[in-house]
């Protein structure tokens, strides 16, 4: 069955990519959509098989790399964790595939687009079904490739190409950490197979590993290195700069890759490695703090942006921060739960935004929207559902998952747990605020678009709305239905996730004080009310506020100047160094090397005689000098002749 999940998208990719022309647009769309839908159905069957009862297993496919005692196979690991990911990936991917048929109907490279989406789906499935770190790395880089190709899909645009390269290279920085983590794992365990690593992790709890000449607590070191990889892929603070720029890609791509699935790979990685992180408490503290800071910083930036997609992108980054600090306090189940619900409501928001953009003739700036809620009522209603879920309003999916995360952080009773809790609360306030800011600016108020645009506004076709309904269903029901399975007293995880008795924050989360449970809703409602005040009742207020807190606004509006800082520190300096070294090649190495030798030998040649000319003589001369020099040196040094 797992073969039916993983390989149909690959086959669909190959067919659509290689034979796109002969299949035609319709054919390619049909092939790719059926590929992922088959995968989705198979995933759901697997979910009931494995997660709802029964145990995980691994299917070996073929050997991959073998070198001495290092040997790695292509394999598909099916357990609760991978099955949940498979379902999320294939269901969202199916929705996005179908939606794209409508959204990309004006594009000339439909087959290519659909095939890339399928390629992405395949790579992501390989990532989550890996039973060893190398295959995970394959999937990891594979999704990076698909992301690169899709961000730069409109390859005539400079900005899209720049964003694509930025995404790939920043991710490579993360991959650098992941690769070192892999090497360290192999150095410690002598294997990179998950089963072996996880079985032996408890015994290694006290071992040390030498790295950069220092002895480190081995599991902490591995945990931190792997987390660098996770930070890159999941856009955590420091390695996040690529995510907002990635919005250059077509909107379905943003929904699938940069909201629902790929960016959650880091969360999956840490959850997968829970048997190791449980013995690396310091690494978990780092994960918590980075996650909490990301949740907060991303939310602050989200307050000030005007591009509808960027607002949602920063909200994604912020929500990923929540997932990470949940992981950090050992609430892996809660992180996976939020990952799942978030996939639904964030994909819904993105595709909804896509529907708006589609209606507004490709306008993304919210300052040029407004007053369109009655023209595209279905999209409007669906965006409300997505926002309610995102803000964690009662009975929507986000309510369950976000609350359990905050409660778990509080229940950890540690300084970092507390820190994460309050950062999370602050981020929740801002989340509600910017979500309704987005709704109000986009749909309400006076129309700010040109007449021409306004006259074109139309509701999206059924092929786009259909997937939105599927996602909306998930955004409403997923939290309520799966609460018990993910974070209940008898959660389904079994061996897939390991939590030490002392770290069981999810159980503890069920017993937190009443105010902790209710605070997120209260704060969310305040956020919505503030947004109403700012953008509906007193539309002059935002501008006045901006004037009053000018420096703060500048900082936030410019995304805390991360891009500028990195550009100066890394990008520009790399190019400068490159130029410098290139000059070194010409001015130093060559001058004192071959050119110098040539010059000298020319002079000597000219001095000595004129009966020989040309290059051969020079070589001979250089050769002679070298031979003589070397022989005499040799004889002198060793004191023995030939």
């Amino acid at each position, binding site marked *: 069955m797992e073969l039916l999940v993983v390989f149909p998208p690959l086959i669909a990719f190959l067919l659509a990519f290689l034979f796109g022309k002969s299949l035609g647009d319709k054919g390619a769309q049909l092939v790719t959509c059926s590929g992922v839908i088959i995968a989705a159905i198979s995933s759901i069957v697997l979910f009931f098989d494995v997660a709802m009862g029964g145990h995980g297993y691994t299917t070996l496919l073929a050997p991959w790399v073998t070198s001495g005692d290092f040997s790695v196979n292509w394999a598909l690991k099916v357990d609760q964790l991978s099955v949940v990911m498979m379902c999320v990936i294939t269901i969202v991917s199916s929705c996005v595939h179908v939606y794209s048929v409508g959204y990309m109907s004006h594009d000339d490279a439909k087959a290519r687009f659909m095939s890339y989406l399928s390629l992405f789906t395949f790579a992501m499935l390989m990532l989550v079904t890996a039973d060893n770190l190398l295959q995970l790395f394959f999937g990891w880089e594979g999704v990076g490739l698909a992301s690169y190709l899709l961000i730069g899909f409109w390859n*005539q645009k400079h900005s899209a190409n720049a964003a694509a390269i930025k995404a790939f290279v920043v991710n490579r920085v993360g991959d650098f950490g992941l690769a070192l983590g892999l090497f360290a794992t192999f150095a410690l365990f002598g294997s990179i197979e998950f089963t072996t690593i996880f079985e032996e992790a408890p015994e290694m709890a006290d071992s040390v590993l030498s790295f950069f000449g220092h002895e480190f607590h081995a599991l902490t070191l591995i945990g931190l290195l792997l987390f660098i990889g996770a930070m890159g892929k999941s856009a955590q603070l420091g390695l996040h700069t690529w995510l907002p720029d990635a919005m250059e890609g077509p909107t379905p791509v943003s929904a699938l890759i940069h909201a629902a699935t790929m960016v959650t790979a880091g969360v999956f990685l840490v959850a997968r490695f829970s048997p190791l992180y449980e013995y690396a408490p310091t690494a978990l503290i780092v994960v918590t703090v980075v996650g909490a800071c990301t949740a907060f910083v991303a939310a602050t930036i989200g307050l000030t942006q005007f591009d509808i997609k960027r607002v949602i992108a920063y909200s994604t980054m912020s929500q990923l921060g929540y997932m990470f600090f949940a992981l950090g306090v050992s609430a892996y189940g809660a992180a996976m739960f939020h990952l799942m619900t978030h996939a639904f409501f964030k994909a819904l928001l993105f595709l909804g935004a896509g529907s708006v953009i589609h209606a507004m003739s490709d306008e993304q700036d919210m300052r040029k929207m407004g007053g369109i809620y009655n023209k595209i009522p279905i999209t409007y209603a669906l965006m409300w559902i997505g926002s309610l879920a995102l803000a964690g309003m009662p009975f929507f999916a986000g309510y369950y998952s976000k609350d359990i995360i905050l409660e778990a952080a509080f229940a950890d009773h540690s300084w970092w747990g507390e820190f994460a809790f309050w950062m999370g609360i602050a981020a929740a306030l801002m989340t509600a605020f910017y979500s309704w800011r987005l709704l109000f600016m986009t749909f309400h108020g006076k129309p700010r678009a040109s007449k021409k645009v306004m006259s074109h506004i139309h509701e999206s076709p059924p092929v786009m709305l259909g997937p939105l309904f599927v996602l909306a269903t998930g955004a409403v029901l997923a939290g309520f239905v799966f609460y018990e399975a993910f974070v209940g007293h008898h959660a389904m995880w079994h061996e897939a996730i390991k939590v030490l008795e002392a770290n069981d924050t999810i159980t503890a989360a069920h017993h937190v004080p009443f105010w902790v449970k209710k605070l997120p809703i209260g704060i969310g409602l305040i956020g919505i009310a503030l947004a109403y005040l700012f953008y509906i009742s007193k539309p002059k207020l935002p501008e006045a506020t901006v004037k009053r807190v000018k420096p703060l606004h500048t900082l936030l509006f410019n995304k805390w100047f991360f891009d500028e800082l990195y550009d100066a520190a890394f990008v520009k300096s790399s190019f400068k160094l490159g130029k410098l070294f290139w000059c070194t090649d010409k001015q130093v190495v060559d001058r004192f090397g071959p050119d110098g030798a040539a010059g000298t030998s020319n002079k000597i040649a000219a001095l000595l005689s004129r009966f020989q000319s040309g290059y051969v003589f020079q070589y001979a001369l250089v050769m002679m000098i070298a031979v003589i020099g070397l022989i005499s040196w040799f004889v002198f040094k060793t004191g023995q002749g030939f």
Partner: protein
Amino acid sequence: MFDFPLLSIMTFLPLAGVLIILLIRGDEKVVAQNAKYMALYTSLFTLAFAVFMYLKFDPSSADFQFTEQSNWLAPLGLKYHLGVDGISMLFVLLSAALTPVCILASWESIKKRVKEYMMAFLVLECFMIGTFCALDSILFYVFFEGVLIPMFLIIGVWGGERRVYSAYKFFLYTLLGSVLMLLALLTLYVQVGTTDIPTLIENPVARDLQLWLWLAVFASFAVKMPMWPVHTWLPDAHVEAPTAGSVILAGVLLKMGGYGFLRFSLPMFPEASEFFAPLVFGLSIVAIIYTSLVALVQEDMKKLIAYSSVAHMGFVTLGIFTATRYGVEGGIFQMLSHGLISGALFLCVGVVYDRLHTREIARYGGIVKNMPKYATVFMIFTLGSVGLPGTSGFVGEFLSLLGAFQVNTVVAAFAATGVILGAAYMLLLYRRVVFGPQENKDAAKMPDLNKREIALLAPIVVLVLWLGVSPNIVMEKVSPSVEKLLTHYEEQVGSAAQSNDLDELHEMGEAEMLEGGEE
């Protein structure tokens, strides 16, 4: 194993082709046409023999196979001794595979002196295969240096504007190195009394002498590789060489350095190799980071790929001198993979060069519109060069780094930054050539790949992906030989460590500090 002199046939079949081409007479056009076909058929026959050898090769044995031996210069004790093990067999195959590709790549772009050009390539093939088959150090030297002559001519006669300067630089660098190597080989002969490579491996010389000899052969192989800082001939040679010249240069000639390390440095001078390993690590790291940064600012497509070659070869030297299974096998795999990928990248440059006659990156742009097939093929090789898992480029890089991490984490971490920079310069190149708006009218009119070009590139695409997904088809043939090499290496280093006089060690160590300034 059998009486049939397979290796000699493969080595000298190209020379037979040369003789026949020499005999071709008649109208210039006809001669050119016949010479081309003759060269192509000869190289294809050689390839067929090479494939036969690959299939017949016994992967369970680490010994030299298909060996041939006869007295050559009996009074001097020089022998004609050929044979291949898992390591050299691969390079023979690579040489035999790339030669027909080169000949086909030159089909239309070479217009003058076609007959001589084809002869030069066949002579080159003879020397290349000979180098990898030779089991006698002097015979090896003859082939190894012989390669220079046709290559020198290919660059110097059929090259670009500054061809003479480049050819000369190439020759000067490599010759300087090889003089030192000849000295080393002669010393070995005097000391051990034989030039037979297997015998030399079995009877290593004293440690002091090893250090000197190691340095001498290192000079030669490091130039060939090329390692930093003796790499500056490579960009110039590549830029001026005709496309096929670049392909064979990147594909095979650079690998002779790595092969030399594996055949001479490591087994014959094990103690010296261990002693100098830090120096090699230092140079490799500098090569990886330095040349990657230089590649980032290149404006010439060929120069950029040439610099990237130096960086990729850095992984090879790094891997080989870790003297671990992963490192050495990774290094070998990286050489094979780089031979295919960079060869193919130069072919890709050749494709657009043939159409627009410029290598300047800025003269292209947006050609994905008019050359979609080309864009796809070029993308696959770009990704291979970047080392994306699933392509052959990944396996070699990964194993080299894995080996390096076992030996020294700092080295591994620094070298791994090359992976980030590699992505930057290759994707930047791809973006500027293939993506973006079509600002150059003439570039926008270039036709897509023709059938000949597809026939050239498609097999390499398949190989790069196949080796990426299933590298074991090669690994299993290499493994026993590497195991034998390393067992021998460890025995030597282990026994030496016990018997060596400590004071002497210190004295030598201080003397070498001047040489090995890196560490």
